[in-house]
């Protein structure tokens, strides 16, 4: 097994062979991947060393200190956080070799073609069809709210392969080529004015069977891997104290005494405490993961993160008073990634409304915590044994 010394030596060798100052960004990242230092817990040859996940911290710290470029997880979040673990678990050897490196390096951006107009929280109700034709599958349907579809090279996609089975059983999971002529991406402008997500129309899109992940009809199971990882990756990044949304508002408070009043002070302090506690809870979760005792806490972190972001950004607009009546820019744009801190308080307020919707609504996550973590009984269901095609729509 690879140990800390081994990892540190490899990091030093990488830096010696490819000095960050004189190496082109992508070249450095490729070399890092090939050295197994991208995600050390991944298998050898796929950017990792089969090493304990804990050792990654040391690698990251050392590379950051040496001024090495990072692979900008904001832009490639869906690829890193969701596509990669799913491909690792369900992809064939060829699929892993083909996709993981450009994904990690950030040369290829990914998006997630899951939600449909008629299937949001009830994702398993989806109706996009995939029909087998020789070595290919032919896809027809419509997806919606697809973040980054306009910059994505590839997509993870779930589609219905058997409408005669109950809804969870007739779904299959694919990798979809976003440059296929049958894929049409239309911007969907959102509450903030920009179009970060899209509608995606799929018309006779051909996907080779080799780009299927998991067995035919097992797509729901495969999607669970994606969704679990999605929740952890949304709430899960390591932050310093005041590293999240609380940072800008605390700074404004310190710098602008004229904005202060007692009511705002009480609310700010309460949120400061909650933000600090959420940060500690995230840290505890990471320590549990590193020690190999993952708790169920992951599913909860996103809930806390969403509520806090919304309350803090709401308070921030209020704190600014007259300035809070203004907005920085309503121009319709199609950003590459979400930038919470690069814009003003009004933007943060509006965009954070999506935090309790994207990746599963807070209501749905509370159900998951109640049923899977606490073991409370599920609500009566009337769709479990009915063929998808016979469900009311």
């Amino acid at each position, binding site marked *: 097994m690879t140990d800390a010394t081994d990892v540190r030596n490899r990091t030093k060798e990488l830096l010696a062979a490819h000095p960050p100052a004189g190496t082109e960004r992508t070249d450095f990242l490729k070399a890092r991947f090939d050295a197994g230092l991208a995600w050390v817990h991944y298998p050898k040859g796929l950017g990792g060393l089969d090493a304990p996940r804990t050792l990654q911290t040391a690698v990251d710290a050392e590379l950051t200190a040496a001024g090495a470029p990072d692979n900008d997880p904001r832009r490639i979040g869906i690829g890193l956080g969701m596509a990669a673990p799913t491909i690792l678990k369900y992809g064939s050897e060829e699929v892993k070799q083909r996709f993981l490196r450009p994904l990690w390096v950030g040369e290829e951006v990914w998006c997630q073609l899951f939600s449909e107009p008629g299937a949001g929280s009830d994702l398993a109700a989806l109706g996009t069809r995939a029909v087998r034709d020789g070595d290919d599958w032919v896809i027809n349907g419509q997806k919606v709210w697809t973040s980054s579809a306009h910059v994505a090279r590839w997509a993870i996609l779930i589609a219905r392969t058997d409408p005669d089975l109950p809804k969870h059983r007739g779904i299959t999971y694919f990798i979809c080529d976003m440059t296929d002529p049958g894929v049409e991406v239309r911007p969907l402008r959102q509450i903030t004015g920009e179009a970060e997500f899209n509608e995606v129309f799929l018309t006779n899109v051909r996907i080779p069977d080799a780009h299927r992940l998991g067995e035919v009809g097992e797509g729901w199971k495969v999607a669970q891997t994606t969704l679990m990882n999605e929740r952890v990756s949304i709430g899960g990044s390591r932050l310093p104290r005041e590293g999240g949304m609380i940072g800008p508002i*605390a700074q404004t408070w*310190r710098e602008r005494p004229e904005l*202060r009043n*007692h009511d705002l002070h009480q609310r700010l302090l309460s949120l400061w405490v909650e933000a600090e*506690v959420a940060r*500690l*809870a995230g840290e505890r979760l990471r320590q549990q993961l590193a020690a190999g005792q993952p708790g169920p806490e992951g599913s909860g972190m996103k809930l806390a993160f969403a509520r806090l972001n919304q309350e803090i950004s709401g308070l921030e607009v209020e704190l600014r008073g007259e300035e809070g009546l203004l907005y920085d820019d309503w121009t319709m744009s199609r950003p590459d990634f979400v930038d919470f801190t690069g814009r003003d308080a009004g933007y943060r307020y509006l965009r954070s409304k999506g935090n309790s919707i994207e990746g599963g609504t807070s209501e749905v996550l509370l159900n998951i915590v109640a049923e899977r973590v*606490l073991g*409370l009984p599920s609500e009566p269901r009337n769709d479990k044994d009915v063929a998808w095609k016979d469900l009311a729509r």
Partner: protein
Amino acid sequence: MTTQSTQPDLLYSEAEDDLRAAVRSLLADRSDTASVLVRAESGTPYDPELWKALAGDIGAAGLLVPEKLGGHGASHREAAVVLEELGRSVAPAPYLTSSVIATETLLALDTETEAVAGLLTELAAGRGTAVLAVPLSGSHDGHLPVGEPRITGIADAAVADVLLVLRADGLYAVETANVAVEALTPLDLTRPLAAVTLDDPADATRLADAETAEKAVRRGLLAGAGLLASEQLGLAEWCLEETVRHTRERHQFNRPIGSFQALKHRMAQVWLEVVSARAAARNAADALATDCSDAALAVAVAQTYCSRVAVRAAEECVQLHAGIGMTWEHPAHLYLKRAKSDEIALGTPGRHKEALAALVDLQAP
């Protein structure tokens, strides 16, 4: 790896897990909630046998005390685990007052002196208990009862052997037998309160001068507040578990009531808060154990947060048990009473928030 050493350790060690198992099984044997209630009603909440086993046999009383003074040389992390279990069982035991606050205060004095060392050795062995003569509601407004002839609301004074009394010229150990102790009727039946009248007790032993005394008392109260968060955590955890268990079993409208989403979401929310409270409480215990410069901040955060979580979990426990939860026979009220008085103990969340405002430079208008 240097970046990691500055991170607090928020997990439980194996030794801590073992300690927890020992304390939990002792409390299950000796202090189930039915007997806690019977004892509380009889006006003698403490069970001396239970204390002997917890403090002496398990060695919980001496966790903070170094080995050379007869203790176990463990830390606040271990003491916090004991408090989690005491919170889970609302067991009446002078642990927080004697083994944490009084002990921590004494440890901040000159432990080379015979009086201090002697007292610590007794406390560590569980042979005697001591409490600080300060109201349980704490002194976070900065006011300590220095030289006051009568002090009210002192927790566990009635069972303690020794009172640690602040006078203008220093800290004194006073035999409880030599002062007038008047029991008060507490909201929390499991943590008795008393008023003591201190006019010129015989045989007071001076332990420290005024300056050392005040610093030590503040340290004792800080540690007490920090570890109280763990008691609150344990309490909240019990309330959630019992509520989940009950709502899975209780049927109304031909369904388990736990299958109603309106209830599920409330319990899921409490769960999320308990998970967060655990991180906050562990962080405070770890900060106290490593004596890190952030300890006061960690304690203020933990107290502000965990107090509210415990109260909420206990209130939800009563509400979701409904009629059953309102009965005297059901233990929910013991938890609610403990949670609500813990919220005030050693500083309300509001007081801790004020302290925090100064610590993190978020000044009031």
